[in-house]
Each structure stands twice: as structure tokens, then as C-alpha cells.
């Protein structure tokens, strides 16, 4: 697998959630994702960027465009150094929320992508990586 390009986006204020959406949209258009795949990836990115901002106290999103054989993919890694998630399994359940959303952020984002990985430890922040292939 080759990483063809990358971009790092800081998430410091709520307006950065919109910026993450716009940059992810830009890259998914460039990789010629279908309009449905674009919409799914941008929506998942929006949920995770909001989590990074609201629960993680801000952080970064690292975007990488991938090439594996003939298929193109987009991988997004959201990182924060916030309080972390005590119970990841519980946080992935629909309806679980400590913020202003509907509690669909993590579980919802997971359903919209091909690959999903989360690492979180209390006091050590959270890392969520998602990948969508064309």
C-alpha cells in the first residue's frame, strides 16, 4: 500500500469541523469517489471531528490518500490528547452520548466506512482511524 498524498488539519474550534468536511470532500472528489461514497466519508469525518473537538478538547485530523494495486482509498486519523474514553465498547453503542449530538458519532461513523479502528485510554487521549476504499 502506497501513501500518495497527505494533509494535516488542526481541530481547535467548532468551525474547523466544517473545514475538515470541505477538505475531505475535496480529496474524495479528487480520488473520484462516487457521490454516495463522498457523502458517507464526509459525514463520518464530521462526526469524528466533532468528537475530537467536543470530547477531546481539540486535536488533529491526518488525511492520507492511499493506493493499493488499482484501488484508491482515503484514510483519516483523528487524534486528541483529551480525557479519553473509559469504555470504548459502550461509546460505540447507539444512543450513548455525553455531548450535544444524538449519540451516533462513533457507532454511526463506523457504519459509514470500510475500516474502523479506535484506541483510547483514560487520561491519554483518543485515536480513531477510518478508511474508505473506492
Amino acid at each position, binding site marked *: 500500500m502506497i501513501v500518495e498524498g497527505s494533509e494535516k488539519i488542526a481541530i481547535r474550534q467548532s468551525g474547523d469541523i466544517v473545514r475538515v468536511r470541505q477538505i475531505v*470532500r475535496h480529496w474524495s472528489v479528487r480520488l473520484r469517489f462516487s457521490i454516495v461514497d463522498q457523502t458517507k466519508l464526509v459525514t463520518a469525518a464530521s*462526526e469524528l471531528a466533532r468528537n475530537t473537538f467536543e470530547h477531546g478538547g481539540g486535536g488533529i485530523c491526518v488525511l492520507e490518500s492511499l493506493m493499493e494495486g488499482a484501488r484508491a482509498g482515503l484514510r483519516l486519523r483523528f487524534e486528541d490528547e483529551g480525557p479519553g474514553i473509559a469504555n470504548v465498547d459502550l461509546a460505540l453503542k447507539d444512543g450513548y452520548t455525553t455531548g450535544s449530538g444524538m449519540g451516533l458519532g462513533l457507532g454511526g461513523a463506523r457504519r459509514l466506512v470500510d475500516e474502523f479502528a479506535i484506541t483510547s485510554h483514560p487520561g491519554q487521549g483518543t485515536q480513531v482511524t477510518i478508511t474508505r476504499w473506492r
Partner: protein
Amino acid sequence: MDEGGLAERIPILRMGEFLLVTIQVDMHDRLAIRLQEELTQRISATRAKGVLIDITALDIVDSFIGRILGNIAQLSRVLDAQTVVVGMQPAVAITLVELGLPLPGIRTALNLERGIALLHAALGTSPPAESRHDRRGE
């Protein structure tokens, strides 16, 4: 500094006994909250009977925007008005279903014209002559 500037707002137009909101921008969270507040005030001030929210230009609806749309629908009901969301893009609809967003209490219509017809039907009023004429062709 503040995201997007404080002056930014989504216009609310009056159309007879209805209010029309056309969301033309990529809506950040605070703008969505402001829309909810301003719309609630306008429903009360104008005694509007219906609210049409046109999301044709919106290329995503995430759980936050979904919650705001749901709040608007609920708040308008308490104020004796009905809300219809119109113009959702097919890709947005597919994504919403997979995201698992329930959109509780939100009524939807394919486009503005059908949204207006839906409101008139719900209120038992007649739509203007022009739109009645247009519907014959369907």
C-alpha cells in the same frame, strides 16, 4: 477569532402563512443553533402555520444537523406550526439511513412545491391556484 463571523445568518423568508428557510451554506454548528433560535422567534412573531426548510444545497446531514432539524420540528409543533424538510439529496438520504439517524417527527417532501402541498393538506387549506394547476400534469 469567531468561526465564520458573527454577522453570518441564514435568511428566513415569509411566504403568506408559511416561513421559508433555504440553507445555502455548509452549516457550522453555531449557525445551526442560531437558525433554531431565530426560527422559533419568527414562528411566534409571525404566527406562521408552517415552516419549509429547503436543504437542496446541503451536501451532508450529520447527527448534529439532524438533531437541530428535529428540534425545529418539535419546537414548531409546540408553537402550533408544522415543519417540512424538502429537497434532501439522495446521497444524503442513503447516508442518513446508514448512520442510523432517526429524524424523529420530521416530515419530508421531495421538493418545495410538494412541501407546500403537504402543508396545505395538513392544515386543510387550499394551495394557491397556480400550484393546483401545476399538479394536474403529474
